[in-house]
C-alpha cells in the first residue's frame, strides 16, 4: 500500500529526470515541470505508461509493415525464427536489467558475465566435465559475479555505473584468459540444436524466445502484482522514503544484482549452444542492445518507472526493425549498429520533450519581460532540473 502514494505523487510532479543529486529535498514540488506535464496531458503514471506502450504497439505494426513491404519472406518461418534467435538472448537479459534500472541502478557487466560463463562452459566441457556439473558451476559463477557487483554497490556504497564499468572490464578480461584464443565447439547434438530448431509445433519460435515469454510472465507478475515488485518502484522513486517505509533497500539491490548475474550466466550457456561454439569476443557489445531494449521499453533511466509489457514490446520492435532493415538488402549489420545507437538516444530524448517546450516558453517569456523590465533577475525562472549521470 505504502509505495502506491509516492508513485502517484512524485510521478505527476516530476516528468523530468530529477538527476542523482541530493539537491532538491524529496517532496519539494518542482512546479514548472509539473505544469508542463499537465499541459501535455502526461499527468498520472497510468496515462503516460499506456501512451508509451501504445506508441510501441504502433511502432511494432509499423516495423512489421516495413518488413513485409521489403520482402515477402519477412513472415516466413525461417525469417521469424532468425528474428527470434537474434532477439531472444538479449530479451532475457533485459528482464533483470529492467528491475535493476527500476531501482535506479545499472548493470553494464551483463555481456561480460555472459562471456565469462560461456567461456567457462567451453573450458569445462573441453576438460571432460559432465553437462550437469557444468550447469551447477555456471549458476554458481553467476551468483558470484552478481554478488561482486551487489556487494560493491550496497556494502561499499559505490555507484553501480563505476562498479559495472570495472566488472565489465574485469569479467571480459577473465573470459579472455579462460579459453585464450581457443574455440570449443563439440557440444552434444541436443544442445547444439537449440539454435537450429524451433519449439516443436511452432517452427518460427526459438527456444530462447519461448524461455523469454515464460520469464517475462513471471517477472511481470512479480513486478506488477506483488508487494516486492511495488517496492522496486518505491526504491527507484525515493530511496530514503522506501527505506523509512521498511523496505530493506540494500538487500533488494543485492538480490537484483545476483539475479542479473545468474540470468546472464545461464544466457551465456544458451547463447553458446545456439552458436554451437564458444570463442573469443563472444557477446561483445551486448550491453548496449540490452540497455537499448530496456530504455526503449519506457523504463526511466532514473528509476521508478516502466513496465515489463513495455520491455517485451520493445524487444520485438528492436528485433523486428533489425530483421526488416537487414532483409531490405541495402542495410547490413553495421548500419544497424548506428540505428540502434540512434534509438537509444531517442528513447531518452523523447521523454524530455515537454521540458524542451517548457524551456522554450520560458525563454520567450523572459525575452518579452526584458522588453518591459530591464532587470532579467526579477523574472528568473525556477532552475531546470539537474542533468548528469545516473546514480
Amino acid at each position, binding site marked *: 500500500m505504502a509505495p502506491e502514494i509516492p508513485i502517484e505523487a512524485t510521478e505527476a510532479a516530476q516528468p523530468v529526470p530529477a538527476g542523482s543529486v541530493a539537491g532538491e529535498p524529496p517532496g519539494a514540488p518542482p512546479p514548472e515541470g509539473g505544469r508542463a506535464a499537465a499541459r501535455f496531458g502526461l499527468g498520472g503514471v497510468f496515462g503516460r505508461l499506456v501512451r508509451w506502450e501504445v506508441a510501441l504497439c504502433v511502432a511494432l505494426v509499423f516495423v512489421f509493415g516495413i518488413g513485409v513491404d521489403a520482402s515477402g519472406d519477412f513472415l516466413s518461418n525461417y525469417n521469424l525464427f532468425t528474428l527470434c534467435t537474434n532477439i531472444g538472448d538479449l530479451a532475457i537479459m533485459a528482464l533483470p536489467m529492467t528491475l535493476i534500472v527500476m531501482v535506479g541502478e545499472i548493470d553494464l557487466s551483463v555481456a561480460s558475465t555472459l562471456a565469462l560463463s560461456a567461456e567457462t562452459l567451453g573450458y569445462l566441457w573441453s576438460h571432460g566435465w559432465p553437462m550437469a556439473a557444468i550447469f551447477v558451476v555456471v549458476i554458481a559463477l553467476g551468483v558470484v559475479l552478481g554478488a561482486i557487483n551487489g556487494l560493491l554497490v550496497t556494502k561499499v556504497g*559505490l555507484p553501480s555505473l563505476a562498479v559495472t564499468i570495472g566488472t565489465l572490464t574485469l569479467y571480459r578480461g577473465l573470459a579472455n584468459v579462460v579459453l585464450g584464443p581457443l574455440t570449443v565447439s563439440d557440444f552434444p547434438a541436443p544442445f547444439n540444436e537449440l539454435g537450429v530448431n524451433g519449439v516443436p509445433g511452432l517452427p518460427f519460435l526459438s527456444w530462447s524466445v519461448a524461455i523469454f515469454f515464460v520469464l517475462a510472465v513471471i517477472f511481470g507478475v512479480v513486478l506488477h502484482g506483488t508487494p516486492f515488485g511495488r517496492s522496486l518502484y518505491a526504491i527507484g522513486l525515493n530511496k530514503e522514503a522506501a527505506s523509512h517505509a521498511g523496505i530493506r533497500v540494500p538487500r533488494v539491490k543485492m538480490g537484483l544484482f545476483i539475479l542479473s548475474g545468474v540470468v546472464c550466466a545461464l544466457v551465456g550457456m544458451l547463447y553458446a549452444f545456439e552458436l554451437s561454439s564458444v570463442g573469443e569476443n563472444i557477446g561483445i557489445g551486448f550491453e548496449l542492445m540490452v540497455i537499448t531494449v530496456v*530504455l526503449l521499453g519506457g523504463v526511466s533511466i532514473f528509476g521508478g518507472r516502466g513496465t515489463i509489457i513495455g520491455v517485451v514490446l520493445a524487444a520485438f520492435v528492436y528485433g523486428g526493425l533489425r530483421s526488416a532493415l537487414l532483409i531490405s538488402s541495402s542495410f547490413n549489420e553495421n548500419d544497424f549498429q548506428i540505428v*540502434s545507437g*540512434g534509438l*537509444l538516444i531517442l528513447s531518452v530524448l523523447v521523454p524530455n520533450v515537454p521540458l524542451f517546450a517548457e524551456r522554450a516558453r520560458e525563454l520567450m517569456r523572459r525575452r518579452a519581460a526584458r522588453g518591459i523590465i530591464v532587470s532579467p533577475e526579477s523574472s528568473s525562472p525556477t532552475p531546470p532540473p539537474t542533468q548528469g*549521470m545516473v546514480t
Partner: protein
Amino acid sequence: MSAAREPEAEPSEPESQRRLVDVVLRARTFGIIVVLGVLVLITALIQSRFVGGGEVRFILSQTALYALVAVGEAMVILTRNVDLSVGSVVGLSAYVSANMFGTHPGIPIVLVFLVGLGVGLGCGVITGAITAIGRVPSLVVTLAMLYIIRGVDTIIVGSGVVLASTEPNSFLNIPTATIFGLPDLALAVAVVVAIAAYYLNSYRSGRDLYAIGSDPDAARRAGIPVAKRVFTAFVISGGLAGLGGVVWASQYATIESTAASGLELQIIASVVVGGVAIFGGSGSVVGAALGALLLQTINSALNVIGVSSIWTEAISGLLLITAITLDRGIQLRVAAALRRRRVRLGA
C-alpha cells in the same frame, strides 16, 4: 550549524577543512607515485632491462596517447558526466587522418593533425550538444555515440585498410623521435597536461567544472552556465581524442575499422586510478595522466616478467575497482574527520 551559534569559530573552520581536503588530495597523487616507484623497483629487480632507456622510452611513448585522451576524459568526469565514446573517436580519427596520406600524397603532417583534431571536435560537439542541451544522461548518450561513431567508421573504412606503406616515414617516426632522450610525444602531452591543469586551477571556467561536479544544482543556482561548461568539456574531450587518433595512427601504422575499440575502458580506468572521483568534483588532470602512466607501466612490467598480455584487460578492471573502493574509503575517513573537527570546534 555550529558556526551560527559560535561566530568566532567560523573563520578557522573552512580553512582547516580546505587544508585537510588538500592534504588528502595531494596524498592521493603521492600514493600513485609511490605505487609506481615500488612497481618499477620490483620489476627491475626481477628483470633489470626494465629500467633501461629503451623500455622507459617505450612506456612514455605508449603513455602519451592514453594520457592525452585521459586529460579530456578527466575534464568530463569532473563535471559528473562520463564520455564512453572516446575509443570510437580515436578509431575514426585514426582512420580519417591516416587515410589523408593515401588520398593527398605529400600532405603536411601538421595538416593531418588538424584533420584529426577536427574529426574529434565534430564528435565532441554532437555528443556535448545532445547531453547538455537535451538534458539526458551522458552515460546513455555516449554509450550510443560509441556505437554510432564506430558504425560510421566502419562504413567509411568499408573493407579498406590504411597500410603503413602509404604513410611517410616522418609520420611513422613520430613515436620514436626524442629530444634530450625523452620521446617528443611524451613531452608534447606533458605540455597539454600542464595547460589543462593550469586552466582547471586558475581560470574561472575551469573551476566551474569542479563546482558543477560537486553539486550541479547548487552550481546552477550560483549562476554557473552548467550546460555551456558541460558542452565545452565534451568538446575538449572529443578534440583531445581526435588528436589521440592521429597519435594512434602514427604508433600502429595499420588501421582497420576496429582500431582502438575498447580503449574507453582503459581511459576511464586511468582517470579513476589517477584519483578523479567518478562522481565528479574532485581530482586533477595530472592525476589522470599519472594514472595512465601507472596502467601502462603495469602492462609493460607484466610483459617484461613474462605474464601474457591476455591478462591486461582483467588487471585494468581489477585496478579500476580497487581504485574506486579505495577512494570511497578515503572519502568516508575524510568526512568522519571533518565531522569530528566540527564537533570539537562547536563544543
